[in-house]
């Protein structure tokens, strides 16, 4: 079991290194197959680990393994250590499974790109980092994985490095994440000081004896890392910009796996959060605010990927809400179904973008229903699943979260109300996207690209380098893109049936040994929440239908509100005003007042002093040999006199 877990972790790293070192000796296609194969091996290894773990008794499913001592400093000793337990295996399965499908999809999507090898090396590196994050056996290994996924996210957002907007987005994501990394590192320092270790067991055993202040600070630091990685308020601004990366990257990193790492972190360190219940409640509250806010912003976005990005933010808000209330298994369940349907939505959107030669503006799309029937079906499944309409997967997980909220007193009910608002908004914005893109008559732009039998393929938004060769493949994309979308369609349809609270709950019972839930919803609460959430979702879809499909109702215009939403609640502007401008001002001020007069000035004066001293002593060098001889003789005489006199 341990060997399988290590295999799962290290094979993608091997593939990343191999592709990097092979350089031109490997074909572009070969790099794609190598990356896909390595992630597939990971997935198989994860399944093997899972099967072996099933054989253990539920209370005995935690298996740490240390390769060697990695870092030793005084009393501290951090091992290269992984932990195989139900939670990490759950995440391993999701990461490697969805990762395998998305990397395979990339083979078709990235075909013809200039730097495919680099892309696949990064993808394999990401999968390794994410697996390290979820398998890490102490908080230090977790932090290493945490930083590495941030790095690979940065590299992949900025993959098209000749586009300034992509580079800016990559930088933004990295800086935002660095804030979280820093707070997390501070929390770890505090933990080391208090408990002398970062191993999960030792830290958790000491969680209750940390003291109120330390416990709250540690939980806050960890929460800071979680919200930065998961794009929750107030560090959410990087996620929409991250859509500058290739679409499969958005699907894998910015929807299915990396951004949900925050949820994983809270569940993994739940004993620390339970020692600071107020911080845990704060996490839930932030999730609730984010989910409503992101839902509102998604209503006015016009970029197909950004709409989905905001829905990702909103869905992660649900997961934070769940774990914030202590419904850990419900949060993880939603993480899994979300990975399925959100990856599906992104990949279906990728098919659309691919077919339309890189166009992402939904105002130019329309009427794709008949032209791309397969994508149409996939998108329907994704949309209904996202909205939480039975029998699709989102229904099962989202409604468990809402039911859990309902059973948690007034605070829970407040969050429940936010979740319900979110359910309505989800129906509205996802159906809006769906109807605009697929309904109605094909727009002129769509006709130009799809009605001529074959279509140009190009990198999204990259008209300058676009290759106008026509693909001979019939239908909607190369096979590697369609079969992966097909599998995800199936998963998004049936994936939710794994757990149907209260009737059968294998995921809850699987995860219970790691994180005991703090909340149990009753059957009535499940029923009420489900009915209401589905009802509100359907109302949202119905309104979108009236506005965007039937066009019976004009889009309501509220100029002020719309401007507010289009500016994403002015968060970018606020941060610009609060942080960017003051620091620029401070920097220019320091440059003028300190650097120029003090630093540069002192150097200039030093240089002048040395030059003058040199010129002064230079006069001593007459170039006349006899002068030198005289000075030697004279000094010799003086030395002799002094010597004799002192004697």
């Amino acid at each position: 079991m341990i060997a399988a877990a290590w295999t799962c972790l290290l094979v993608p790293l091997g593939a990343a290194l191999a592709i990097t070192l092979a350089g031109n000796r490997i074909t572009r296609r070969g790099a794609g197959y190598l990356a896909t194969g390595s992630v597939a091996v990971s997935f198989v290894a994860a399944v093997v680990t899972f099967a072996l773990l099933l054989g253990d008794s539920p209370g005995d499913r935690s298996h740490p393994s240390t390769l060697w001592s990695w870092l030793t400093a005084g009393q501290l000793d951090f091992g290269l250590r992984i932990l195989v337990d139900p939670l990490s295996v759950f995440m391993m399965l999701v990461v490697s499974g969805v990762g395998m499908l998305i990397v395979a999809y990339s083979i078709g999507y990235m075909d013809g790109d200039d730097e495919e090898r680099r892309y696949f090396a990064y993808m394999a590196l990401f999968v390794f980092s994410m697996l390290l994050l979820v398998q890490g056996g102490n908080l230090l290994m977790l932090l290493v994985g945490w930083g590495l996924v941030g790095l690979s996210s940065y590299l992949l957002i900025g993959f098209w490095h000749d586009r300034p907007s992509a580079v800016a987005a990559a930088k933004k994501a990295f800086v935002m994440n660095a804030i979280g990394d820093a707070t997390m590192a501070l929390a770890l320092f505090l933990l080391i000081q208090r408990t002398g270790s970062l191993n999960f067991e030792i830290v958790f055993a000491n969680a209750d004896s940390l003291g109120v202040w330390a416990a709250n600070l540690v939980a806050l630091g960890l929460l800071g890392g979680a919200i930065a990685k998961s794009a929750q308020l107030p560090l959410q601004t990087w996620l929409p910009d991250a859509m500058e990366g290739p679409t499969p990257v958005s699907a894998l990193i910015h929807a299915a796996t990396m951004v949900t790492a925050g949820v994983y972190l809270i569940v993994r360190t739940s004993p620390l959060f339970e020692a600071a219940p107020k911080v845990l409640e704060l996490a839930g509250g932030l999730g609730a605010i984010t989910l409503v806010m992101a839902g509102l912003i998604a209503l006015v976005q016009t970029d197909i990927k950004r709409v989905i990005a905001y829905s990702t933010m909103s869905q992660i808000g649900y997961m934070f809400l769940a774990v914030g209330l202590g419904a850990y298994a419900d949060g993880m369940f939603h993480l899994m179904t979300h990975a399925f349907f959100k990856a599906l939505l992104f990949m279906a959107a990728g098919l659309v973008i691919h077919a339309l030669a890189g166009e992402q503006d939904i105002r130019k799309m329309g009427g794709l229903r008949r032209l791309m029937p397969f994508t149409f079906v996939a998108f329907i499944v994704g949309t209904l699943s996202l909205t939480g309409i039975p029998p699709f997967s989102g229904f099962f997980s989202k409604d468990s979260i809402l039911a859990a909220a309902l059973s948690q007193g007034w605070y829970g009910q407040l969050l429940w109300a936010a979740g319900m608002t979110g359910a309505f908004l989800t129906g509205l914005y996802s159906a809006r996207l769906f109807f605009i893109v697929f309904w109605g008559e094909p727009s002129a732009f769509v006709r130009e690209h799809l009605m001529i039998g074959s279509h140009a393929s190009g990198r999204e938004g990259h008209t300058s380098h676009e290759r106008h060769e026509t693909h001979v493949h019939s239908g909607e994309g190369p096979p590697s893109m369609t079969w992966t979308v097909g599998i995800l369609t199936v998963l998004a349809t049936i994936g939710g049936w794994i757990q149907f609270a209260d009737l059968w709950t294998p995921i809850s019972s699987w995860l219970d040994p790691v994180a005991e839930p703090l909340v149990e919803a009753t059957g009535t609460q499940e029923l009420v929440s489900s009915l209401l959430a589905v009802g509100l979702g359907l109302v949202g879809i119905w309104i979108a239908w009236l506005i965007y499909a039937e066009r019976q109702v004009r889009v309501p215009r509220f100029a002020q509100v719309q401007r507010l939403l289009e500016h994403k609640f002015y968060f970018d502007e606020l941060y610009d005003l609060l942080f960017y401008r003051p620091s620029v001002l401070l920097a220019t001020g320091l440059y003028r007042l300190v650097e120029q007069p003090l630093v540069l000035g002192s150097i200039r004066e030093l240089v002048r002093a040395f030059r003058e001293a040199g010129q002064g002593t230079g006069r001593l060098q007459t170039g006349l040999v006899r002068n030198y001889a005289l000075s030697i003789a004279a000094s010799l005489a003086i030395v002799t006199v002094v010597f004799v006199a002192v004697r």
Partner: protein
Amino acid sequence: MRGPDVVWYLAVAAFLFCTGALGVLMRRSPLIVLLSLEIMLNGANLALIAFSRHYAQGDGQIFALTVMAVAASEVVVGLGLIVAIARKHLDLDVDKLSTLRG
């Protein structure tokens, strides 16, 4: 076999050394400067040998031999330089060789 006292030897050595030093300092022809240098070295040698005899030890004499060897090599280099200067049709005047003035 006592001979004169060591003081007399030292006096002659000092006289030779000073003569040489004056020559080095005052003459402008490089040839004469080299010659004067030799006189200085020989003054020093004389002092060494005188002390060697005074203390009845061979060290000073051996050291004088070393000084002679060094002097010979130094003259080789010095004469080589003088020949090089003469080949360039430059004046044989040490004061005119002042390119290194600061």
